[in-house]
């Protein structure tokens, strides 16, 4: 694997996490539990999408085969998407949606903070913009975890159930492989060990305040980073790619 291939793959992984999570959050548009949250979630979906666009554009440039952000977002096949399985999980109830975002935010913020020091100028610049947004995202999802956990019996139960269901997907966020080790060595990608330590701190603090218990680390699902997804991914792509597949090259 060349440096260029590693960087391309890495940028795609970062982008696909955000692209798919953005799509999931977008599904709430018009269905939020209250108007204010409806807007908060779609704001956040657009933040993720904006960051994904920058990363996809960069991934296309690094690849050097003339693919732009749209080609990468809409015209790849399922096995070519490199997002973690966490972000493709269904919205479920609001506690489930919030828990999914909380776990992602607790990983994404320290990742972006560490990436500010990347030797790759483009990634450092993307992180510069992302850190501010991610700080707010984590604040929003943490607040809701605490409200649910420390709220009524029912909200507590729902939040705990969501955590238990999603926990198996958190391990994949921190798996190193040939791509990450190469880029960490080059000073381009942050070391995932440090990100994991920050993730643990955030999760422990917030769950303690929320009176929720941290699930035991058991079997951890992996494979998303290699393009092996859960059965939910196909449904997402069917909807997301429909316009470009039905009307190739359509613009508006």
């Amino acid at each position: 694997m060349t440096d260029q291939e590693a960087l391309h793959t890495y940028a795609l992984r970062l982008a696909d996490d955000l692209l798919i999570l953005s799509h999931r959050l977008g599904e709430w548009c018009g269905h939020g539990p209250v108007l204010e949250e409806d807007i908060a979630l779609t704001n956040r979906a657009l933040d993720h999408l904006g960051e994904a666009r920058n990363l996809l554009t960069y991934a296309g440039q690094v690849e050097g085969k003339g693919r732009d952000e749209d080609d990468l977002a809409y015209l790849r096949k399922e096995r070519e998407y490199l997002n973690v399985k966490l972000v493709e999980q269904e919205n479920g109830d609001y506690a489930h949606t919030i828990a999914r975002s909380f776990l992602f935010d607790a990983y994404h913020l320290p990742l972006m903070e560490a990436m500010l020091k990347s030797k790759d100028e483009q990634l450092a610049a993307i992180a510069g913009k992302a850190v501010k947004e991610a700080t707010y995202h984590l604040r929003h999802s943490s607040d809701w975890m605490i409200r649910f956990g420390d709220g009524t019996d029912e909200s507590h139960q729902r939040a705990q159930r969501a955590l238990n269901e999603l926990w198996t997907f958190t391990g994949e966020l921190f798996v190193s492989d040939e791509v990450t080790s190469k880029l960490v060595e080059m000073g381009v990608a942050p070391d995932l060990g440090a990100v994991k330590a920050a993730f643990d701190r955030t999760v422990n603090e917030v769950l303690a305040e929320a009176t929720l218990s941290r699930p035991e680390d058991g079997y951890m699902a992996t494979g998303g980073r290699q393009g092996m997804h859960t059965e939910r991914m196909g449904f997402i792509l069917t909807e997301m790619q429909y316009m470009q597949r039905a009307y190739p090259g359509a613009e508006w």
Partner: protein
Amino acid sequence: MSKEKDNWPLWEVFIQSKRGLEHKHVGSLHAADPRMAIENARDVYTRRQEGNSIWVVLAEHMHASRPEDAESFYDPADDKVYRHPTFYTMPEGAKYI
């Protein structure tokens, strides 16, 4: 959830568009407490760079004059033009008043 949601109090939102300017009333929203009210205000009312400071006040703590008092409150000012600085002529030669 829907029962809880119905219990969320109403908040009035004031946004300052630039440092030094006044906070202007922009609308209202529902939230469980001040922290949530400010976050909701951020998401609902500052998405297009409208502001850099937010105040929220419980709507029940706002008090307003009554429409039926309008005549006695405001009409008496109609014929008191001398309350406007423009009523007075500037003395000749005075540059700064």
